[in-house]
């Protein structure tokens, strides 16, 4: 019995280290389940909808669930991101168009310090609400590993469409009308 003690302990330690490594790798990896679900035509519930995020420029927190009943175009951006700057005017124009459809754009900052984000909002004349995801946990639940990314959330709080890179006006024009037409 004793001769199996040391090999047994060494094996247990090796297995524990491998399990730890697997856990570390899996927790760092990106989540592509939303992409797969949307590609199949199903609408997964928006993750972390009840996570409170501070509104940029104030300490008032908001959650995605606060917008339930509205169509939300969730745009993940950062002030240091060139493509985010390029798509900002398109989003701002769209915000004015959405106002009459019980819909809104909601910006979420990605790994960006608040002063730079505020400057970006001023420079780009952004009028829609912007939330801060301080450590990136909220957007990681959407599978975000870079910016810009945009998710369209329907009135029931489900992800109806997504764009993993810079959007253009034609994508919004194609994607939004059927989702806006649906009632809650």
């Amino acid at each position, binding site marked *: 019995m004793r001769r199996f003690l*040391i090999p047994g*302990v*060494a094996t247990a*330690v090796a297995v524990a*280290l491998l399990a*730890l490594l697997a856990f570390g790798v899996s927790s*760092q990896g990106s989540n592509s389940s939303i992409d797969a679900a949307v590609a199949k035509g199903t609408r997964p519930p928006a993750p972390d909808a009840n996570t409170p995020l501070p509104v940029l420029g104030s300490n008032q927190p908001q959650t995605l669930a606060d917008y339930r009943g509205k169509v939300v175009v969730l745009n993940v951006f*950062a*002030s*240091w*991101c*060139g493509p985010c700057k390029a798509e900002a005017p398109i989003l701002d124009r769209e915000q004015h168009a959405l106002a009459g459809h019980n819909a809104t754009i909601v910006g979420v900052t*990605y*790994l*960006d*310090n*608040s*002063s*730079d984000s505020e400057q970006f909002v001023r420079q780009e004349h952004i009028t829609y609400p912007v939330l801060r995801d*301080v*450590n*990136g*946990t909220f957007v990681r639940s959407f599978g975000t590993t*870079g910016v810009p990314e945009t998710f369209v959330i329907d009135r029931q709080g489900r992800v109806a469409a997504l764009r993993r890179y810079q959007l253009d006006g034609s994508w919004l024009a194609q994607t939004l009308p059927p989702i806006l037409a649906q009632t809650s």
Partner: protein
Amino acid sequence: MRARLLALITVAAVISPAPAAYAMAAPPAPRASFTDVENDVMCVSCREPLAVAQSPQAYAERAYIHSLIAQGLTKPQIEQQLVAQYGPAVLGKPPAQGFNLTVYILPPAILVGGLIILAVVLPRWRRRTRAEAAEAEPAVTAAALHPSEARRLEDELSHWSG
């Protein structure tokens, strides 16, 4: 005359900008080294040390650190601000709490465990090797020194020893 001179000096002292005012307006002296801070923090979007990162987010983070140094903050204060803006993942050494404790506990535990295993196993291996050698040696000698062969060997050697 003396009173007038005194009044003149007093008025001049009041209307002239005081050195203290200059001291207040001047930017505070830096209390942290940029390289020192940069070496201990991460680029949060690229997940590599900021000192080697070349992404747009890394440049923005460096600019932010420069602005904090210009405000006269110390290194711990700067790190605190960075955590408030980017989360704890910005720190090169994660805070010793929760799952992060494994970073601090596991390496020394593995080292100590390895040393204990070596301390237990090595003497056993040495004892076993010596015992095997001791068992093998007489067997070989006995086999080699069979009386008839030993006599023959003696004969052969006697020819050579002359």
